[in-house]
């Protein structure tokens, strides 16, 4: 079974949950016999702008194709590198935030004929929607030139590419919903994004969602037939043997950590309010908010206003190993997300033996039993859970015994097998 997969980011340039998830999944798929994945990502550097315009304008898109042998992959994968001006390696949501003001309302799909002639406005710049459209143009050409049985597109940025490939080839399309605009926007759904998402879901033969929470959104908010939506949970890469800790804990204080983008979606203010409650009762504790985001300044102000800055630290954005260093220093990990389609990071915390508190509004809550679950708005419950973990050692013991085991049993290979079932179903439909 040959799968043509469209994504937005791919290692080593991972910026967010989407990249981690598509990487993990392809890795899982690569271990399954008779599934061959060709992964397409847009990739751009500043100096490619001119060539891209030429490429597309001429209808003569250069596609460099090379075989790569990634570490940990049991098979060589085809990795197509498309030269375009798309700026893929920023977080898609951040990118959207940066660029959404400049989106023009007159967006149309670009029609591609069999000769690859495209009528272009020639306009470029930080216009994400145009770039997505360009990606779909390239996708249709790839689809024409390659041989495959099925198309798999990750998240809305790649849906148009998937649709284009389907239109050209007539092969079944599976789309993978890692998030919807309802999650990203906090209720203020962008109609253009919604339209792209809705179109992708309508045209797709089958849909994979990362949790039942997201599945419900797809069914209820996008009015999709439930029979074509399947939940496949994400997993987590097994943790490599940890090298010696870089930092030692400088104090005997307990550390409670929030790790993630400081945006509306992640509910940082609920963490701060809970921290302030705890600090009224406990002294020997420190709170850390690791990450960056558009709400960071507001959050710093909030801690100042509550008078807890001496016990509350902001680390800024943490990269790579620093994330694990931070987890290693932590006694509690908390993710009070307002809405979280899945949420891989609590799994990483559990791998590092850190007890986790997650919101009921996260997809990962559906699969974790050895975690404390509260509603994101229930500050009393969040504070109480933190207090409980810090005060009653049996909880940490339980998480060490069972939580880690539970996470270790999740594997991308199992997720990949479920994805394969969806593939087979999609093929049998056609």
């Amino acid at each position: 079974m040959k799968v043509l997969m469209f994504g937005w980011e791919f290692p080593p340039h991972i910026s967010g949950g989407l990249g981690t998830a598509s990487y993990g999944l392809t890795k899982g798929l690569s271990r399954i016999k008779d599934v061959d994945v060709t992964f397409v990502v847009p990739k751009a550097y500043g100096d490619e702008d001119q060539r891209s315009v030429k490429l597309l304008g001429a209808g003569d898109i250069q596609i460099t194709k090379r075989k790569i042998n990634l570490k940990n992959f049991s098979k060589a994968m085809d990795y197509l590198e498309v030269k375009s001006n798309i700026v893929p390696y920023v977080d898609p949501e951040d990118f959207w935030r940066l660029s959404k003001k400049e989106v023009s309302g007159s967006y149309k799909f670009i029609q591609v004929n069999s000769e690859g002639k495209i009528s272009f406005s020639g306009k470029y710049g930080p216009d994400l929607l145009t770039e997505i459209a360009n990606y779909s143009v390239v996708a249709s050409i790839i689809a024409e030139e390659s041989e495959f049985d099925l198309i798999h597109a990750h998240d809305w940025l790649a849906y148009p590419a998937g649709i284009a490939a389907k239109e050209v080839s007539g092969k079944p399309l599976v789309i993978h919903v890692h998030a919807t605009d309802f999650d990203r926007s906090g209720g203020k759904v962008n109609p253009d994004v919604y339209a792209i998402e809705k179109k992708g879901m309508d045209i797709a033969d089958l849909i994979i969602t990362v949790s039942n929470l997201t599945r419900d959104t797809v069914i209820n908010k996008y009015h999709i037939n439930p029979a074509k939506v399947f939940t496949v949970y994400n997993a987590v890469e097994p943790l490599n043997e940890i090298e010696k800790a870089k930092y030692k804990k400088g104090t005997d204080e307990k550390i409670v950590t929030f790790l993630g983008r400081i945006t509306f979606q992640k509910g940082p203010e609920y963490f701060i309010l809970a921290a302030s409650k705890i600090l009224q009762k406990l002294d020997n504790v420190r709170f850390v908010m690791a990450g960056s985001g558009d709400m960071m300044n507001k959050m710093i102000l909030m801690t100042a206003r509550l008078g807890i800055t001496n016990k509350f630290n902001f680390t800024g954005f943490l990269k790579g190993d620093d994330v694990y260093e931070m987890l290693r220093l932590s006694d509690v990990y908390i993710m009070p997300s307002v809405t979280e389609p899945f949420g891989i990071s609590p799994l990483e915390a559990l791998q590092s033996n850190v007890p986790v508190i997650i919101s009921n509004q996260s997809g990962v809550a559906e699969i974790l039993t050895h975690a404390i679950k509260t509603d994101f708005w229930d500050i009393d419950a969040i504070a109480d859970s933190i207090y409980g973990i810090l005060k009653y050692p049996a909880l940490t013991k339980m998480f060490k015994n069972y939580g880690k085991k539970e996470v270790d049993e999740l594997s991308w290979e199992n997720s990949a097998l479920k994805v394969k079932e969806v593939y087979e179903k999609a093929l049998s439909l056609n």
Partner: protein
Amino acid sequence: MRTICLYFQVHQPFRLKKYRFFNIGNDHYYYDDYLNESVMKKIIEKCYSPANEILFDLIQKYNGKFKVAFSLSGVAIDQFELYAPEVLESFKKLAGSGSVEFLAETNAHSLVALKDKQAFCEQVKTHSQKIEKHFNQSPSVFRNTELIYSDEIGATVSEMGYKAMLTEGAKHVLGWKSPNYLYCNAIKPRLKVLLKNFKLSDDIAFRFSNKAWEEWPLTTEKFVGWLNNIDPKEEVVNLFMDYETFGEHQWHETGIFEFLKFLPETVFNNSNFTFSTPSDVAEKLQPVSAIHVPHPISWADEERDLTAWLGNDLQNEAFDKLYSLSGKISKCKDPAILEDWNWLQTSDHLYYMCTKFFSDGDVHEYFNPYESPYEAFINYMNVLSDFEVRLNTDMPETNTDKELAKLRILVAEKEGLLKKYISEVNKLKLNISKPKPPGTKKASSKATPGKTKTPGISKTGRKSTKVSRVKKK
């Protein structure tokens, strides 16, 4: 003689309200009154009222030939007194019929038997007194919380003077033996042991309404047929179950009440079985052998062990923490604290912390007020923390006493210093006032709040008032 021994368990815990850590030290009321009352009312309507009525009618109808036994936990009786005195009255009516035996158990429906022999005996005694007070019967047969039994517990029960005890006919204890005989305790053979026939009991209690069960629907004829298939030499079939089986675990619509209504009639018509109470059985039958139970068993889950209450770190910590307070409790006289102590020991609090249900049985979900065992644990530990604070205030133990004594000495010293300072201040005042008679007023009024030594004075003054407050208590 071939006989059926029916025993029903009646128990409802005082479920705790949501108790946050910031309540610790401030809020000393722990129970969710609304939940407890509404659960109680619901069960009364669905089970206790109709079932009591049926039993009373049957007893009247068969005029002493139909007998049953009840065990009402002390906590359940407390709840009846609070929420439903009329139900307590209907149990009294049953007690008055002469065909209903009330068993002894632990007052708190607790697991104290596993921890503290003396406290266990006291709890059992309290419960027996409660039963005597309400039902005018002095229990002679004992059943422990969740039918927990071991040789040792049995021996203790025998020492207390009970003649028989009920427990589970657990497979791993019985081996090839049959539960349908009377046994005796391995250490104190005078204590008779009645073993639950879990197959026939669970056919009614768990499988009755299960349509996937090959024997569904279960009629009294079919059931008595199974009784008749039992080896004629076997003497007693012990059917032990939760009273809530009738109408609550098995809904009215399943026909469970009809089953109960017609069981005696079918037994009398189609078999030579009679009905007996546990004490009848213990009196009339001879034990066939001793039963060896070195490790405690219970009637719960597939394993018939204690893991539903003491199976994970959360439960063990809560259990240990709870009974670490028993030393102080034994000296405590405050009735409010003792009542809470009783209600906090109820085994259900530990049951809610069980993590086994992640893999098996929805039975654990039953009337469970918590969404997860972790929530149950944190809530319980918060309550226990507050309880400990109260207990320590009421019962200062040696360390605190010592500290208080130290403080008293300190206060005495400071008071000495105070006197010295005051006399010094007065001397100084005199010195100042003598050369400048007109300025006396101003100088003296300034001297008290402003001079360097005054903060020290006020500090010690504050301390002494604090201590005197403690003394008053």
